């Protein structure tokens, strides 16, 4: 499909701008969906006042975020304190650049798409730690330390599980993987036992990367008040919250691209399929969030190093053997 805009730079810019606006509005209404879904789960009503069934609630929240007072604690390292929230949002949006929304529609069709995405999402632990350290608050520091520990240790099983589709399809580029899945069969089913386990593990580690329950140790409300984001107010906190939502949406999209065959689907147009799969995965993320308790930090580490890493290593070996045998 010829690209509408000849100049590659301009096309990347337009795609990027389009992607960010779509993603940010999606993040806003995702917070509405999460509050409504949580309310239903807890037999409450959820937002109903602002707009029909509370649909304008995200706008009200955004407006509240803008007009609240922006406090920077006196002892804080103000440069890093100001830098952390935009950096987190930048990293989570950057990973969206390689997501194959439609066959041609791709912000930048990198041939090392998977590596790029995992690298950026792995980097996310850094700005949150910077936020924790720079806000001169002991709870924030503890939260930041926990974030680093969890972020790094869950990066390894995530990368290994992402390797399984790469090994099977033989290419790192996301659009290639999706084309392979469109041609053959979805990678969830293809290497029969291995694909499903890889998908489940990738999904849980993605939960851990984006600090969602049951892995939200850094931002544990009942222990560390609000973890690294304790001292943040108004729009800075808004940036952190939207970054967290953006990151979980992007990792759901990544999981659906890697395992559930991206935009491949029988009847509906390709981009609708991609959105449907991401939305389905995000519903599961929210559903898990409102029904599970939280792990302790040392249990979390034990779970990662004793179970997830060996299993994901075995998966990669299995996938390799499978490719070698079946070809």
């Amino acid at each position, binding site marked *: 499909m010829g690209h509408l805009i000849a100049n590659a730079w301009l096309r990347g810019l337009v795609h990027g701008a389009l992607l960010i606006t779509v993603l940010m509005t999606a993040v806003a209404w995702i917070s509405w969906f999460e509050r409504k879904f949580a309310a239903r789960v807890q037999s409450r009503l959820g937002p109903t006042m602002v707009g029909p069934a509370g649909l304008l609630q995200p706008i009200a929240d955004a407006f509240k975020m803008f007009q609240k007072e922006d406090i920077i604690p006196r002892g804080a390292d103000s440069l890093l304190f100001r830098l952390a929230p935009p950096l987190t949002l930048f990293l989570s949006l950057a990973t969206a650049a390689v997501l194959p929304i439609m066959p041609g529609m791709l912000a930048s069709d990198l041939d090392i798409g998977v590596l790029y995405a995992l690298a950026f999402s792995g980097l996310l632990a850094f700005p949150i730690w910077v936020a924790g350290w720079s806000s001169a608050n002991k709870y924030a520091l503890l939260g930041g330390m926990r974030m680093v520990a969890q972020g790094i240790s869950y990066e390894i099983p995530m990368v290994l599980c992402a390797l399984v589709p790469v090994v099977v399809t033989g290419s790192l580029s996301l659009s290639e993987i999706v084309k392979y899945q469109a041609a053959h069969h979805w990678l969830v089913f293809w290497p029969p036992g291995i694909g499903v386990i890889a998908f489940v593990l990738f999904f849980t580690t993605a939960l851990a990367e984006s600090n969602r329950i049951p892995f939200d140790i850094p931002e544990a409300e009942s222990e560390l008040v609000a973890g690294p984001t304790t001292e943040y107010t108004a729009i800075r906190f808004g940036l952190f919250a939207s970054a967290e939502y953006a990151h979980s949406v992007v990792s759901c999209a990544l999981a659906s691209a890697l395992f559930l065959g991206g935009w491949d689907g029988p009847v509906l147009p390709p981009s609708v399929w991609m959105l449907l799969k991401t939305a389905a995965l995000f519903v599961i993320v929210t*559903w*898990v969030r409102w029904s599970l308790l939280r792990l302790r930090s040392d249990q979390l580490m034990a779970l990662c190093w004793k179970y997830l890493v060996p299993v994901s290593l075995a998966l990669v070996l299995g996938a390799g053997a499978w490719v070698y045998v079946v070809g």
Partner: protein
Amino acid sequence: MLYLTATLQSLFSTLRQSLKKPTTVEYPKVVRPRAPRLRASFALTKDAAGDENCIGCKKCEKVCPSEVIALTTVKKPSPITGKSRGYASDFTLNLQGCIICELCVQVCPTDAIVMVQDQEKPGFSREDLVLTMDKLYDNGEKKLRLSWANASVLAEHQNPERKHA
């Protein structure tokens, strides 16, 4: 493996909860019906002939644990029966400190002060919460769903000699 089965079990239990109707209601639009014995605010009552019940005996002022009732009495002939008897000239009840313990209602010899089922509307200044005498009589007039309890009913309830089947 145990993690997976237990997680699925709690997931489905939340799903079952979410399919039921929510128990909360949108408060200002839908008001949940309260118990008939609800006691929220206060009112001063008048007897059948329209004469004020309160004779200014200050029993309620003495019994109030948080000392929020203040009244001054005056002796003057009653506009209806003509006999001179005690009246409360100024009766204020400060709802800010009131703990709604219903002792003043129980102690009143002439069933003058009674509790009302309608919550006092929140005001913007502290004075809104101080019930002055005319506000109290106004509450009584407007028949704000007077609560079941006045001194005689409470006394009958608590009567030691009460024998019933």
